[in-house]
């Protein structure tokens, strides 16, 4: 079974899982925050934020990758700052791949959470406030549980995107086996070579299987959440 894929390919699988996992983990809280801001607050620059969130969708991935490189590379303003102050480095590392995936999936994460947020009945949040819950507690005990469907959807989309992101990743952190060569990069490599299709297909199948498992799991969780809540 193990020699079904080459060791380098297994490495790509391992890396993809890691990248997808961390991309999801980090974009989740930020996505919820941005979605909340967009859905609930009226502030100057709201539309600008909204457009910014959608940028990775509008621009070709190469451009996004290039901009990430410019900003988060070792010599980029943000990258340099993070590196020297916090020792966080994205350049040519899997962390950069995770960043690229997270950024590319961000519009979906935000949209999904926002849709759920806008469907939350504000009267329930009011009820919580009259019972003594401050805004943050209302959010944690009422809003957050009620937007679980959106969070699950956003998580799944981000995870899937993390498994599949190619253009921004290769532009930002290039293709370094064992470091940044995720499954899509490996597949791409195989497709660039005449006759590489069969191996590419195997890798794609594995990737799909993983994402499908995550998908089925998410459906189970979502169904459970829905069943628990029923209708009030």
């Amino acid at each position: 079974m193990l020699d079904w894929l080459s060791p380098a390919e297994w490495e790509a699988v391992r890396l993809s899982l890691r990248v997808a996992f961390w991309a999801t983990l980090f974009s989740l809280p930020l996505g919820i925050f941005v979605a909340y801001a967009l859905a609930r607050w009226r502030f100057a620059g709201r539309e600008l934020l909204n457009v910014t969130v959608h940028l990775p969708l509008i621009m070709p991935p190469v451009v996004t990758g290039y901009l990430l490189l410019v900003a988060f590379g070792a010599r980029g303003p943000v990258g340099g700052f993070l590196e020297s102050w916090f020792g966080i480095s994205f350049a040519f590392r899997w962390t950069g791949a995770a960043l690229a995936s997270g950024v590319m999936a961000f519009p979906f994460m935000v949209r999904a959470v926002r849709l759920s947020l806008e469907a939350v009945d504000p009267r329930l949040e009011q009820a919580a406030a009259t019972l003594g819950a401050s805004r943050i507690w209302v959010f944690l005990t009422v809003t957050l549980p009620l937007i679980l469907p959106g969070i699950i959807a956003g998580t799944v989309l981000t995870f899937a995107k993390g498994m599949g992101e190619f253009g921004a990743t290769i532009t930002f952190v290039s293709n370094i086996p064992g470091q940044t060569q995720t499954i899509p990069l490996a597949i791409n490599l195989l497709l660039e070579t005449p006759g590489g299709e069969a191996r590419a297909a195997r890798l794609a199948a594995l990737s799909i299987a993983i994402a499908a498992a995550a998908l089925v799991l998410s459906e189970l969780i979502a169904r459970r959440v829905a069943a628990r809540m029923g209708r009030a």
Partner: protein
Amino acid sequence: MTLSVRLRHRLGAFALDAEFMAPPGLTVLFGRSGSGKTTIVNAVAGLLMPDEGRIVAGDRTLLDTKRGIRLKSHRRRLGYIFQEGRLFPHLTVRQNLAYGAWFAPRHAPRENRDRVVELLGIGSLLDRRPGALSGGEKQRVAIGRALLSAPRLILADEPLAALDEARKAEILPYFERLRDEVSIPILYVSHSATEVARLATTIVALDAGRVVAQGPAAEMLADPAVLPTGAREAGAVVQARVAHHHADGLTELDAGGTPLFLPRVGAPPGDTLRVRISAHDVILARQRPDGLSALNILPGVVQELRPGAGPGTIVALETPAGRLLARITRRSAEALRLEPGSQVHAIIKTVSVAPLDIGGGGAGVEAAGPNGMSHDGTSVRPR
């Protein structure tokens, strides 16, 4: 604690412009559908920020638009029973009930959970979620949730509307206890004359966003003109001491020296009760009648005759038990030649004193005294 409310707010074509005082006890907001009751309650709860207004609860200013004070809902320490439940669908009944307690100050005096659960008959529902409850069950859980949040002010918007009579009869004494013993001020919206009569310390009558009458319950109930439900709901509240429980299931009360028979009452002998006697349940006779099935016959002197718009007249009497009201036809008043000073007998059927109308304790009426409300027998009407 006195709650004073002054609000001005516009909602589309609806203009609210209300000012009233809710002295300690239970204040009923009374008015037709759409008259602005829920709007007022929402403003007190901080869920609606009025265009202009001032709300002061005791020494705490909850809102003062002039001074820019707008206390957030969660700092107002309320127990709001909403007109439409608003249970948290993702929490079990148990968690819904516990919700308010999480946020209450640790040492705030709080109700006993098991007692409330038992009272509301929701013990078997604790592990369900609101989605699997009937309409009345939801409403009962909502009541429990508000009561268990250790509130310093209770807002109840038609809390019992969805409940059957038997359940109402079980829950009403609880509100009385809150009012009298725990001394939590209560703002209570209701369309039910029974609830109003039984619970109200003060009544605020609303119409189209304005307060058309307000005053102590005893007086407001005696004046059919101010009560939007009409004459049927006039009545007097008398105080009586439990004298004796008879073997045949009757309880004998002592109302200023006269015996008054009621179906068995729970209170032990010696307790003082508040009994509402509806004006339309009283028959007047010139001579003391004999051979009647009615057990309660009180002598009295006519004080006042107040003809209504229809064929009826309200007769106010002074009896040993206190002031009583009788609603009779003008035709009868003439036939009996009633006028102030006439000696009459008031006939009250034992069973016409409804179980719901027997209130525990006299605090409700007594408390109406020292709060600046007019006490001269007429109700206070603003402007």
